């Protein structure tokens, strides 16, 4: 077990190195530099030049890369030029909101997907099954941003059930019970629409798994020993089919984080995805590099997590 985990972690190191190099090269190619935004008719060109030299703009690229990566490893991604704050503190603030949304959605994904998958598999080829299959097909085919917009339009503007943007009403005092309720209330609509898109894979997997299990020997044995079918489902099939679902966790989390760009743009939710789009528009390249690096790292971490869970659940995966 541990051998597989350690080997898997060791593979991650060169991957992270290549990722950082790739992102650094991309960032260097960006047109203009962070200081072009500061130039107004009144600014002294020499002052801008001074800033550039101070920021190490004319060093050879490998020196710049070395400085950047050694600082980044210590959590220092430099200074954001548009926000005039350390990048780490800006991202930290936004990351909390993105993670809150992602966590809430992951819980919802499992709450929606597991019952639907189990029901569809158990009542295979009935009306209920066909409805669930149709639902999972639509949630698979619909583009994320179209779903979000329609949800905001219908539930936010037409029915007015939910707020349409932000994370909390400004009028409320932090710390009060109402404040937290309001925060949760703002999370509901993005969270639900986010979760709907994440359920497809789990539903389909559980459904086919349970349909396959019906004809397996262990189910026949259990039946012939006189166990009622209800118990066979809840004790035998459910447990066997559910374990691999745990392995979806890593991919679900990375999928949700990757989708944060769309959801945060549509719901005007000030998380990392929105920060990324804003930073691209203002050419704040220290923030961009830090964000892409972070997302890449989280994606690698997600696939690591899934592989580890899978190797715990399914011993056949452990290759030595």
């Amino acid at each position: 077990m541990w051998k597989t985990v350690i080997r898997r972690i060791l593979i991650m190191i060169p991957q992270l190195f290549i990722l950082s190099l790739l992102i650094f090269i991309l960032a260097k190619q960006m047109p203009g530099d962070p200081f072009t935004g500061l130039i107004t008719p009144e600014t002294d060109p020499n002052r801008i030049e001074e800033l550039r030299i101070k920021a190490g703009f004319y060093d050879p690229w490998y020196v710049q890369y070395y400085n950047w990566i050694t600082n980044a490893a210590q959590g220092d991604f430099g200074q954001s030029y548009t926000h005039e704050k350390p990048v780490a503190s800006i991202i930290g603030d936004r990351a909390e909101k993105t993670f809150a949304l992602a966590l809430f959605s992951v819980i919802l994904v499992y709450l929606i997907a597991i019952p639907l998958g189990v029901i569809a598999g158990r009542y295979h080829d009935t009306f209920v099954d066909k409805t669930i299959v149709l639902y999972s097909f639509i949630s698979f085919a619909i583009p994320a941003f179209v779903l979000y917009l329609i949800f905001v339009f219908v539930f936010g503007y037409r029915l007015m059930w939910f707020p349409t943007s932000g994370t909390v009403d400004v009028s409320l005092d932090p710390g009060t019970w109402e404040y937290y309720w309001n925060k949760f209330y703002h999370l509901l609509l993005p969270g639900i629409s986010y979760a709907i898109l994440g359920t497809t894979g789990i539903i389909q997997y559980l459904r086919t798994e349970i349909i396959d299990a019906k004809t397996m020997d262990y189910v026949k044995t259990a039946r012939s020993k006189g166990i009622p079918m209800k118990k066979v489902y809840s004790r035998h099939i459910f447990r066997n089919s559910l374990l691999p679902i745990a392995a979806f966790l890593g991919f679900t989390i990375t999928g949700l984080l990757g989708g944060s760009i769309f959801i945060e743009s549509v719901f005007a939710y000030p998380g990392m995805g929105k920060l990324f789009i804003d930073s691209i528009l203002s050419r704040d390249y220290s923030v961009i590099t830090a964000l892409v690096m972070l997302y890449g790292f989280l994606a690698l971490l997600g696939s690591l997590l899934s592989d580890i869970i899978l190797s715990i659940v399914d011993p056949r995966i452990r290759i030595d």
Partner: protein
Amino acid sequence: MANKNKKTVENFKSESSPPTGIQVVLREFKKDKLAMFSFLGIIALMVAVFVIASWIIDKEAVMKINLIERFTEPGVSGYILGADEAGRDMFGQLIIGAKNSLLIAIAITILANVVGITLGIIMGYYGGFIDNFFMRIIDFFITLPTLMIIIVVVTIVPKYGITELIFIIAAFQWMSTARLVRSKALSEARRDYISASKTMGTSDFAIMFKGLLPNLSSLLIVEVTLNFAGNVGIETGLSFLGFGLPPSTPSLGTLISYAMNPIILSSKWWIWLPASILILVLMLGINYVGQALRRSADAKQRLG
């Protein structure tokens, strides 16, 4: 008498030979009316969009700014679907946008799949070092946050237009195809007919593309169809965020992105809703056809 006998033998033969390729697909579509309907509907929709956009609509007239007519409601003064902020006809923009989005998605699909399939077959056929080398690269790139990197690349490219957009997206789309084709080609290349070809002295190139490729065709049709749907989604998504086509060339994504303005989203539905519905119809239709094709490619799941 002898003639009649011969005929029955022929009949018997044609009935017992397993249906292949296109026959299976046809049977599946005959059985699944909704898939048939989706397929014909998508084709009809695409043809209509191309015909109207190329011959009937005057692009200059559609894109002309006319501020007096801004936010005209649908049906008023000759605007079938109303007008946008600058008084441009929404119906014309919708059709031109759909044409642009579809053309870009088709180009990306062709480009990415040609690269993906070729590489996948080469990897699967040769195996060994070539296979390992490319698999390492693919495994790495597949875990990357693709959308973010595409956006970064889009902002870097100096002369940015439709061709550049197609190449940038295609550069990140060939990997999953290559991986899938490789896994199938790997097992297919160990079959007897491939070994027989090798013994006969057929060149590797001929074996790969005349022997192996046709045997993967059922899988490839499914892959290409589903990729096409995915590529429509990626292009419109990028345009929606403002990193796809420039606003002067409408795409379904740019039309929907007008909804980022809360006033338009809440009270000017005719600007963004038709494009959203069109995308929805396209995606559902193409994906449904793709699933029917997938079923016909797998004997276990066939309905017909």
